[in-house]
């Protein structure tokens, strides 16, 4: 995973709450077997509406998304994270996120910056005061800088460390392989396996 220290780019106010992952990318766009190309499905239904924020020239090149509360609820599809990244988003700032979406983002390298909803309202106002204005999100100092203000955001320390260092979870876990083997040696024999089922030839 690439390291993330700070990012400067166009901040997009998405004044909607409860944006579930079906809205971020509908199921019919999930058929690819790659991690790329999902930008075509990003907010697919809403992008057909000329009034939608990403259809405004000032915001079309956005890389920092600021939605309302409960963003990324619902389906576990990591394609929602990939669609945002494939489109060009590096950071999502909001007050409340779906759990699995937040996890997926951390793993895939999309920064989820959490602030109070009152702060989201300020950030919306700043982004709308000068459409297309750049914000800077600094993970080291945990701050968001807009043309008008500097605010702090929250991110859990473990995710922050992994993003700053660009760490790969699987490699870290594999360093504990002995502990995993020791755990396995103690597993009770009554635990089921899937294997009495035939394995494909």
């Amino acid at each position, binding site marked *: 995973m690439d390291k993330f220290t700070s990012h400067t780019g166009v901040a997009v106010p998405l004044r909607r709450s409860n944006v579930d992952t079906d809205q971020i990318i509908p199921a019919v766009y999930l058929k690819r077997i790659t991690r790329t190309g999902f930008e075509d499905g990003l907010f697919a239904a809403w992008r057909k509406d000329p009034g939608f924020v990403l259809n405004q020239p000032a915001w079309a090149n956005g890389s920092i998304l600021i939605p309302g509360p409960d963003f990324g609820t619902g389906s576990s599809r990591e394609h929602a*994270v990939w669609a945002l990244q494939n489109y060009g988003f590096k950071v999502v700032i909001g007050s409340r996120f779906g759990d699995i979406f937040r996890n997926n983002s951390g793993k895939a390298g999309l920064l989820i910056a959490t602030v109070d909803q009152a702060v989201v309202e300020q950030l919306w106002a700043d982004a709308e005061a000068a459409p297309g204005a750049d914000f800077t999100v600094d993970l080291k100092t945990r701050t968001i800088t807009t043309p008008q203000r500097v605010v702090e955001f929250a991110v859990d320390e473990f995710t922050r460390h992994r993003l700053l260092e660009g760490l790969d979870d*699987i490699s870290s*876990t594999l360093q504990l392989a002995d502990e*995993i083997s020791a755990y396995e040696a103690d597993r009770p*024999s009554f635990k089921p396996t*899937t294997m009495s089922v035939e394995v494909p030839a």
Partner: protein
Amino acid sequence: MGRTLSEKLWDAHVVHKGEGGEPDLLYIDLHLVHEVTSPQAFEGLRLAGRTVRRPDLTMATEDHNIPTLHPELPIADPVSRAQVETLRRNAKDFGVPIHSLGDVDQGVVHIIGPQLGVTEPGMTIVCGDSHTSTHGAFGALAFGIGTSEVEHVLATQTLPQARPKTMAVTVDGTLPDGVTPKDLVLTLISEVGTGGGQGYMVEYRGQVFEEMSMEGRMTVCNMSIEWGAKAGMVAPDQTTFDYVKGRPLAPSGADWDAAVDYWKTLRTDEDAVFDREIHLDGSAITPFVTWGTNPGQGVPLDSSVPAAESFTDEVARSSAERALNYMDLKPGTPMRDIRIDTVFLGSCTNGRIEDLRLAASVIKGHKVAEGTRMLVVPGSARVRLQAMEEGLDKVFLGAGAEWRGAGCSMCLGMNPDQLAPGERSASTSNRNFEGRQGRGGRTHLVSPPVAAATAITGHLSAPADLAAVEV
């Protein structure tokens, strides 16, 4: 101090305790895999030259992206076909057992685990699917994960996880006649909101759950994610043991006895304390349906579409406004007056045999209303066969409903089973999100008996309304 069921499950699976804000590393007893959220994970393994650590604790099936008509023909959509073929190739290359289309154990991933007896109490179970919470019905710690985590579990059979808080949802009393576990969970979500469970492992308890069948418990646990909970679970009891016993992959002989002895230790201790508690009165619950575009936007079938202004919270109000607009509903309209184009009976929420039996018992001797279509999609190939043995297919077909092959189907509208723009459904599935069942489609979440009664009248109805309908 005593521990809760969820704490016991958690503690029993810690491989490595995280220190200083680090997550714990949990062992995973069962990893279920399907075609949509796994291709990039297997590809990641290939690129890194890794193998699947425990293929014998991994099981794959095809459910999300397969057609429910003509299973004997190649999948018509080449992109869907490529995705399903990729899963088959990955299963073969990595030695993972797979239940493909045509196999008698194929079906929605959360239906086949319990059916095969590989879902058992005391386990950790994950899948690249948010409704993995279903398996919690057995007294297991089960939750959905994303594709990066799927890759992590394939490679290591473990997952780093921050420990959630604990919550108890206690439902006392007895559900009235005609009220199902689906009505209960829809009622719960409308009261606590879609974010109410966030950060919690939830245990459902109380008389209503003690009296509930395993399949009913699965329906409730299934929708835990719809109010944001990390996992939902019910303590294992005799009902659980009876359900698991004798299934193809369940333990037998001395292993069975050892297993049951262990499972009996899992119940929450008397002196355990939950971080949060919610109480509901089961006898006050009535048939419940949604009017909006998230599962928390629901009301009793007996009431009417609410006005956006009736919500005091600003966020809830604007969300209701958008939902009413999308759903094309006028505040004050009685829920029963809402006309329905398509009834969908199926999904991992309500696609099991008890659901089909219940719906068939309502629909028997009636006809699906003119202008309404009804799609019956059993949750698994075995549920389908069982239903046919009981003659349920004939009941549905005789009423004019469609009887399909097993899969997710219109629950997520990924295969050709979709709503047309503007079409309105009554659906026994779990999500009424904008466009979930097809772009521009409008979904009302309902229980199986309400689905069946609605198919007969052509507008949202409960079985009790049918007395007036001519047979």
